[in-house]
């Protein structure tokens, strides 16, 4: 069982890196130390009308500085509240949550789509293998430059303003790429397409899923997805995304 903490973190850096997308570094007590790529934290709101914590993936980990980096899009009231906070302010968080990505030594695709791109950054840093990073953007290429340090980066944009016009699979095809393992996070249609692509090409495929959460620690059964096999904990064909996930072998879950 991975260890989790509820802490009061301090915002040590914050900026808007793209339209409505914020980049925030938090100084933690122990969470940075415990965190792995692909795990997430949940952020509590200060406003009393919003009680449930907001799950946000860990984008980068700086164990020396005891800090974690979160990149999030303003999607509603909670993320709006966070986006208005400033350096030096405190924020209650819980984490690290979930399992995180496995790190295999195989030629890899790291695939991120939209707001699914940030969690691939720490993975890119920690993976020790040949890394082909494929990023799908709507238009603005946030975080793009940072990925270039860790592998060869391919881009797809919806409007064709950069890289391949289309989606990440279009970019893979256009560049004639292949790999032995896929790590992916992004919108459901992208993950579904990757699952199919991986099955057809018999590639191991790891996807990070999302679901509405309440507890974030596996107690409420709010965040399940259907699984191929009976889950050992739930004793039914449901896996808890916050606990057994958010990263699953694509073939083992329905989404």
């Amino acid at each position, binding site marked *: 069982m991975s260890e989790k903490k509820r802490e009061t973190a301090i915002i040590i850096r914050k900026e808007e890196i793209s339209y409505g997308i914020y980049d925030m570094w938090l100084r933690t007590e122990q969470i940075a130390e415990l965190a792995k790529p692909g795990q997430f934290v949940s952020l509590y709101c200060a406003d009393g009308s919003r009680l449930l914590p907001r799950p946000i993936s860990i984008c980068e980990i700086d164990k020396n500085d005891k800090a974690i980096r979160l990149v999030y899009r303003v999607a509603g009231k909670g993320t709006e509240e966070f986006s208005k906070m400033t350096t030096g302010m405190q924020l209650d968080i819980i984490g690290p949550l979930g399992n995180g990505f496995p790190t295999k030594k195989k030629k890899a695709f790291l695939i991120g789509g939209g707001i699914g791109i940030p969690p691939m950054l720490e993975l890119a840093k920690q993976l020790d293998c040949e890394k082909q990073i494929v990023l799908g953007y709507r238009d603005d290429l946030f975080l793009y430059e940072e990925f270039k340090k860790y592998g060869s980066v391919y881009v797809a944009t919806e409007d064709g303003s950069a890289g391949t016009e289309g989606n990440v699979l279009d970019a893979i095809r256009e560049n004639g790429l292949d790999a032995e393992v896929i790590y992916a996070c992004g919108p459901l249609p992208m993950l579904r397409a990757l699952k199919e692509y991986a099955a057809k090409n018999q590639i191991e495929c790891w996807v990070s899923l999302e679901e509405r959460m*309440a507890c974030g620690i596996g107690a*409420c*059964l709010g965040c399940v997805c259907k699984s191929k096999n009976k889950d050992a904990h739930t004793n*039914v064909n*449901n896996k808890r995304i916050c606990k057994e996930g958010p990263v699953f072998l694509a073939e083992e879950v329905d989404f």
Partner: protein
Amino acid sequence: MNMKVDLAGVTLDNPVMTASGTFGSGEEFSEFVDLNKLGAVVTKGVANIPWEGNPTPRVAEVYGGMLNAIGLQNPGIDLFIERDIPFLKKYDTKIIVNVCGKSTADYCEVVERLAEQPVDMLEINISCPNVKEGGIAFGQDPKSVEAITKEVKKYAKQPVIMKLSPNVTDITEMAKAAEAGGADVLSLINTLTGMKIDIHKRKFALANKTGGMSGPAIHPIAVRMVYQTAQAVRLPIIGMGGILTAEDAIEMMLAGATAVSVGTANFHNPKVTEEIVAGMQTYLEEQQIADIRELIGAVQ
């Protein structure tokens, strides 16, 4: 200073319990809370066989609370007995097993299976709004409340808590029916049926359309129902619904509850149950109250 309270002959170290379904069987929260510090752990509802529950989304946030439509997913009584009870037995707290079913026979089967188990009490959930069969249907009609209570009591070796639904015109009718059926304790309230619609997608926020509303938003309704029930029956009451702080827990006791359960607040702060126990202690000290039982129903 005495923090102990008595529920149908079972003595709790303090009145703070966990609300069924919000705390699993305690394992996940044991990283954050010392379970030994709680009056009792009430487990997620368990049925005679494993249930898959409802499709997702199963939870949605609302103003000052949340909706859930988990649909009573549970691993079934076999795995529960094999895994969850032994886990809880490691702690010095009382074990209350919440029981659900689709028919009276289902409930009785679970209750019978638990008869020889080291559990302290049974909480019978006849008030879940999120399942089609069983659940709330049992809890909205006094005749069926009385009937199922009687049936369950035949098989139960432990004291029986009947958990009532707030989605009724008159909670005291249900309370009296449970009393007439032989219930030892009442617990209230379960969730209020609510709905949320995503106005951008123009779709229900929950796959189940409706869900059970919980959290501080429902607290005043819970306090009212606990008060009314305490006036109407002689059974001890476990009060719940929106308890977020020690003050809320004390309010519930003043209204007439002997013990309290904390649910949704666990999602807002996983350490909250322990903090509520400490806060209640501080209140007693400040108010120079020697025995927490003096609070029960003490509102003027």
